[in-house]
């Protein structure tokens, strides 16, 4: 039996199919994962993401510590509440984890890390904290509910505590508002507008039920995966890991090279890789032949293997199959993917496939 979030009994009550994920028992879907996917693209859906771990980093050296720890630069977070997506790298330039960091004040930051890597991440952070005047505090007392979709904010806002509600409605994308232990980020993992709401474990069930009553569709990990894939967002452990870094997984944009004197962990390795002509590219694929793209299928060009799919699946918004793939440089606009021993035609496209309910690639 895995770990249970404060919403576990709600998932059981709603008839969820539960699966192990990152050490937790989590809902895969509540009936139809495709309907849940469409709910997020068209109206609003909610996800229990309480398995993810908020980690507060506070103290006089908090900024200096995070500028050493993360490949993106928290000095870019000029106003309170602003958020940043970043990789946390090892010395070899591989990814320890990907995360979101919110600036809460001059000496206060909140990171949100993946469930399966949380313990390892915190150990990594502590191991690299020597000499920095900081406190690292995992917030296991907080639950997290992501409410996503074009109607997500207007449906969720009235259910927020009054002290945070007005601010939550005013914040721009990639900002957060907070009051006491309620923390509302205008962030997500679906390619739609919405909130990620952190709140005390003890209040999670009330919010979940209120959201359900107001018409927000409960969604499981299945829909979360197809939504993020359509949005062209990476999944840690699948699209990148400790052996494959940001430059080969489409995350070069998250590496802050300037200022050059900022010596973040992994920088030396990344600089070497940056100018390597053999560095693999990270692309999107749209299957034009019949079948479903899946991770680990081989990508072929004129019959020669040139790479591998890292994430693939059925894309409900496109009613077709798409993938993210790592390939040798110079692949043209078409390729084949080996499905059950046979080459099937695909087009090479630039993610995202879908954003804000709209298909972004040519078909």
């Amino acid at each position: 039996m895995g770990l249970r979030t404060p919403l576990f009994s709600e998932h059981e009550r709603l008839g969820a199919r539960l699966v192990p994920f990152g050490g937790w028992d989590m809902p895969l879907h509540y009936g139809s994962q495709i309907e849940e996917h469409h709910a997020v693209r068209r109206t609003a859906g909610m996800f229990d993401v309480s398995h993810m771990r908020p980690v507060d980093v506070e103290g006089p050296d908090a900024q200096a510590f995070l500028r050493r720890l993360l490949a993106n630069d928290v000095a870019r977070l000029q106003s309170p509440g602003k958020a940043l997506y970043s990789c946390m790298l090892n010395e070899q330039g591989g990814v320890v984890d990907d995360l979101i960091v919110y600036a809460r004040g001059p000496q206060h930051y909140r990171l949100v890390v993946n469930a399966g890597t949380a313990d390892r991440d915190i150990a990594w952070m502590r191991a690299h904290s020597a000499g920095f005047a900081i406190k690292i505090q995992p917030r296991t007392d907080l639950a997290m509910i992501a409410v996503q979709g074009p109607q997500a904010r207007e449906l969720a806002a009235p259910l927020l505590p009054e002290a945070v509600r007005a601010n939550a409605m005013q914040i721009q994308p990639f900002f957060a508002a907070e009051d006491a232990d309620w923390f509302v980020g205008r962030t997500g993992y679906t390619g739609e507008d919405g909130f990620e709401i952190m709140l005390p474990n003890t209040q999670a069930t009330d919010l979940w039920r209120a959201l359900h009553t107001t018409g927000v569709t409960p969604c499981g990990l299945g829909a979360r995966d197809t939504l993020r894939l359509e949005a062209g967002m990476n999944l840690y452990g699948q699209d990148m890991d400790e052996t494959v870094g940001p430059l080969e997984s489409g995350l070069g944009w998250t590496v802050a090279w300037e200022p050059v004197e900022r010596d973040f962990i992994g920088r030396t390795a990344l600089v070497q890789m940056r100018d390597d002509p053999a560095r693999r590219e990270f692309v999107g694929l749209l299957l034009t032949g019949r079948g479903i793209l899946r991770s680990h299928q081989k990508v072929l060009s004129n019959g020669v293997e040139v790479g591998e799919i890292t994430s693939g699946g059925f894309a409900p918004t496109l009613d077709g199959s798409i993938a993210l793939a790592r390939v040798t440089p110079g692949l043209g606009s078409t390729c084949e993917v080996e499905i059950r021993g046979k080459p099937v035609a695909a087009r090479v496209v630039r993610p995202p496939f879908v954003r804000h309910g709209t298909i972004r690639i040519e078909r």
Partner: protein
Amino acid sequence: MSDIPADLKYTKTHEWVRDNGDGTVTVGITDHAQEALGDIVFVEAPESGREVDADEACAVVESVKAASDIYSPLAGEIVEGNAVLADTPDAINTSPYDEGWIFRLAPSDPGALAGLLDAAGYERVVEDES
């Protein structure tokens, strides 16, 4: 509880088999199987004329989660694959025993049908899994 019609035969790998009474049988996957797979988004049905062995993988059903092989319950010749599933694979979810059939087969030994599980036998297979 999933639907297990009494007039069909079954396999341990969750196929159902209907005796059409004309020397052919129709094969699909059970209600229990479609529910476990989740939303089905792609089906590769076998070509007619193909000779298959008993327990040979001859079709593929892909759900949002994963691809699953479908095994021929009996040896014989494929008479027809369900062409409708190319455009509406979710017929297996909505109607596993009717519109969602996958292929028709002319068994080389019609007597072999009797060796498959009956509804009560298949119900025990499902119970043992849970």
